């Protein structure tokens, strides 16, 4: 089993790292069986027994994943410094996880989120968790949380609820790239976006797969972070508040981190501090 093998490797090398790198900077590992293994990175809190819930971070997908990696790692580090264990992971067919991009699907990624929550609980020994999602990861996190009774808090960072807007944005990003490199305009039906395939099956799934379900009764609090579209955020907040959860909305104009190339990546520290603070408020 890959997970077992890697745990042995990690234990063997941890001693070398002990004292040289703070625990909150993260320790990577694989979990699940080799054919479906997921890459993850656990950022452990600097101090034990802080009382804060562990946090799962569900990142963005496709080219947005690459652009947001640095910010999501910083988010995890800041959470760990504040006392929460934080787990980042790559969905199937993305990052270092098993599979290829063309076979990825929203359903598969939702299953991955369930597996990652289970893994986080197993590693931290805690029963309830908080989940932070970014872009499509936010939508999928909300959908996965609705099916569980162990997600206490949910942070949705620019959730995607409109497939047409998402596809338009992706295709425009491709067009901007093409123009910058003098490449003749692509056919109207883009089959790839900035180096990642965009299959017809995935497009179809997007059309019907972004609806936010009614939240689980176990959801106690939610924070919706928006980067401009206040109306959409209010709609999401209203949906999440359905069963009595306390919902807050945070607006930050400069937090559209997925629109900047990796070499020009932004870490939205102000928003990160707000998210970390909001999670701490919930624990107190």
């Amino acid at each position, binding site marked *: 089993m890959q997970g077992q*093998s890697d745990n042995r490797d990690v234990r063997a090398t*941890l001693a070398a790292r002990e004292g040289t*790198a703070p625990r909150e900077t*993260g320790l990577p590992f694989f979990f699940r069986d080799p054919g479906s*293994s997921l890459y993850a990175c656990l950022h452990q809190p600097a101090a034990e027994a802080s009382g804060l819930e562990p946090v799962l971070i569900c990142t963005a997908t496709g080219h947005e994943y690459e652009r947001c990696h640095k910010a999501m790692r910083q988010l995890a580090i800041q959470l760990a410094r504040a006392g929460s264990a934080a787990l980042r992971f790559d969905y199937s067919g*993305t990052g270092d996880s098993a599979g290829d991009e063309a076979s990825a699907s929203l359903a598969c990624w939702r299953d991955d989120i369930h597996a990652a929550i289970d893994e986080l609980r197993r590693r931290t020994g805690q029963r309830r968790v908080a989940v932070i999602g970014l872009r499509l990861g936010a939508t999928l996190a909300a959908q996965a949380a609705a099916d569980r009774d162990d997600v206490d808090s949910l942070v949705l960072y620019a959730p995607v609820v409109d497939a047409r807007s998402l596809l338009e944005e992706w295709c425009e990003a491709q067009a901007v790239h093409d123009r910058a490199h003098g490449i003749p305009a692509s056919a109207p039906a883009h089959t790839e976006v900035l180096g990642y395939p965009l299959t017809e099956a995935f497009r179809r799934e997007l059309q019907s797969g972004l609806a936010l379900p009614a939240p689980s009764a176990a959801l106690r609090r939610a924070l919706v972070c928006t980067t401009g579209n206040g109306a959409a955020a209010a709609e999401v907040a209203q949906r999440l508040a359905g069963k009595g959860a306390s919902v807050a909305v945070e607006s930050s104009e400069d937090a559209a981190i997925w629109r900047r190339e990796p070499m020009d990546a932004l870490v939205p520290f102000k928003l990160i501090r707000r998210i970390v603070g909001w999670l701490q408020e919930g624990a107190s």
Partner: protein
Amino acid sequence: MEEVLLLGPYASIVGIHTPAQAGLREAPQKTVVIMLNSGLIHHVGPHRLYVRLARALAAQGIGAVRVDLSGLGDSPARPDNLPAAELGFREPREIVDSLLARGYEQFVLLGICSGAKHALQAVSGDARITGLVLVNQEALSDSTPDSASARASAQFYLRRSMRNPRAWLNLLTGKVKYRALFSSLAGEIRRRLSPGRRKQAALADLFRKELEPALAGRCDVLLMLSDRHARYVGLFDDGVRELEALGRVRVALRADADHLFTAIKDQEFFVSNVCSWVRSLGQEPAASEVSDTDTPMRTYASE
């Protein structure tokens, strides 16, 4: 079955090891390709290119490790405050140290852009590194004189514009800077008529000088060039041939690809060329590939 490695003297370098698939591991040489960060992009590489390449190599019996140098991607900073300028060439060697213990014997460093620069710096004086894949290495383009760079760019855009209907439309509707265009065209005509044109082939010497650290040892080199980097080489007719005539340098050009091989067809070109070249390391070229007029190494593709 991929695994996480924590490499270097402080276990601060995160590496993802993709071993050769069972039953395919080559014998007797055990080669591993070490993929270095491209700029600030973490170890999956631009558009997950390193993951795709590592798995393609593994399927052909070759191991690979994609790494984050300290302070990049998922790797924490080193505790010893090593200056950034030293980190780029010292850590690849420390990674080699760590991988020796896992049974690897031959090491290929691969880098795109700044990663290529680090790979070339690391190879200097380290005989364990037997192969370099340098993709759009910044130093090569930095070493070209400004005038040559500007001319290469002008030629590239001129050729591209001639194939673009929108550019012709712009020309006919007055949406171009006519003075700049005619100045560029006149300069090109003057250059072509100049008897000193062939002197520009001396730029091949600059390229060769950049590769000296690799060529001084027993290292083979695959130079993969796209975008403006391909333009620089393409500008000088003999440059590519001279490099390949060295016998240990192979050049793969993909001028229409962008700097990071973004288009999926360009990624496929990248992966297949690196795999073929790594497989060919240490092998004598087939007799049919060598003739008095040909060079032992072949260019895979050109624009």
